[in-house]
């Protein structure tokens, strides 16, 4: 951060910047831990200026607010779009994998559901439900040199979220297909995906984990097959 930008920390904490300046300053903040910390302290300070201005609100306000929240739908959590920076104590690999998937989901749904915020939010909510299930387990593997596939599964919810990145582009006549694999039963399809070149795939939410021990991925004719036509080129263990 330049000295000039840093000087704006006070004006920023006082909300004394124009909208454009505020956005610019926030972009600077995102890359400067020391500035973020200073701003947090200054924000706590301006909060004290607010607390000192406290007044008893008019008597009717409480009832009106409580009535209005009864009619007001709550907004779902914002999903992280970046991997969080490592912190003291460290994030568990499960949390890291979950963040990765959420980051992808956040970025990708924005593209896939452009102009359809409700559907995107619903999709994100369903992903978040799997991520935050008490028994959620994550597993990541590499494939095709630098591609990765991550699965987070919850047996309790009987669901899994699968995301991939940098998978090779397939000819238009082919699709990737995911399979739940159990030793005691035939493979069950967990979804078909055609990741766009160079972009992370839209996560697949698959139901019916059942007693599957592994998740496998094959290349199938476009649209998918009823049963895999070949051996999976990768498998992931489902805990």
């Amino acid at each position, binding site marked *: 951060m330049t000295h000039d930008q840093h*000087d*704006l*920390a*006070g*004006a920023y*904490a*006082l*909300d*004394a*910047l*124009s909208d454009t300046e505020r956005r610019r300053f926030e972009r600077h903040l995102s890359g400067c831990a020391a500035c973020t*910390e200073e701003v*947090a*302290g*200054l*924000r*706590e*300070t*301006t*909060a*004290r*200026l*607010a*607390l*000192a*201005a*406290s*007044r*008893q*609100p*008019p008597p009717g*306000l*409480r009832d*009106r*607010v*409580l009535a*209005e*929240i009864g009619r*007001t*739908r*709550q*907004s*779902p*959590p*914002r999903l992280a779009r970046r991997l969080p920076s490592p912190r003291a104590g460290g994030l568990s690999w499960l949390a890291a994998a979950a963040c990765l998937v959420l980051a992808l989901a956040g970025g990708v749904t924005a593209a896939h559901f452009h102009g359809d915020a409700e559907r995107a939010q619903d999709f994100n909510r369903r992903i978040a439900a799997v991520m935050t299930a008490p028994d959620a387990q994550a597993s990541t593997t590499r494939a095709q040199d630098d591609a990765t596939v991550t699965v987070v599964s919850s047996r309790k919810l009987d669901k899994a979220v699968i995301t991939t990145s940098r998978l090779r582009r397939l000819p238009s006549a082919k699709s990737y297909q995911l399979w739940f694999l159990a030793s005691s039963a035939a493979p069950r399809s967990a979804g078909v995906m055609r990741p766009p070149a160079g972009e992370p795939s839209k996560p697949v939410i698959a139901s019916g984990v059942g007693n599957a021990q592994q998740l496998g991925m094959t290349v199938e004719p476009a649209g998918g097959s009823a049963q895999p036509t070949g051996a999976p080129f990768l498998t992931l263990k489902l805990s």
Partner: protein
Amino acid sequence: MTDPSSGRAAAPGVPDLGDLLVLVARGDRDAFEQVYERLSGPVYGLALRVVRDPAQAEEIAQEVLVELWRKASHYRPDKGGATAWALTMAHRRAIDRVRSAQAGRDREARAGVPDPEYDQVAEEVGTRLEHQQVRRCLRGLTETQRESITLAYYGGYTYREVAELLGVGLAAVKTRMRDGLIRLRDCLGVQT
């Protein structure tokens, strides 16, 4: 848990505001009523201080408190205290109102006195103490620092407008705001 905005540990038995917001995010109305008890005074008082009109202040307070219900899930504890988060929302709402009404209003009259008479006795001892402590610490600033901060925060002026009002350069105003807030922070014993 401590609420950094107060710089003190929460009194035993008093739930942390951040914890309450987590419950509110799940649709817990009882938790929201506790949030209301804690924040309605500061939210209304701050709006009143900025817009100087009880009817508008009440409208803003209602909007902000409903927004807290709606957006409780957006609160990120790693980005700062819950009180600061909520009151930033309130402050931005109030200044949006005065900035959009700028043309029709005499804003100089509005912001004229940095610290108007606290004519109504604060209802709660806590509020009164908070007010006294903040006033004492504001007095510890240089006059130019105090003016810059109160014009911006309570008056809703941008730092460019403050520079113009005070007839000083932009760089000077930025510095006064930052140095003044740092001094205020240290005087109030704010912990982050």
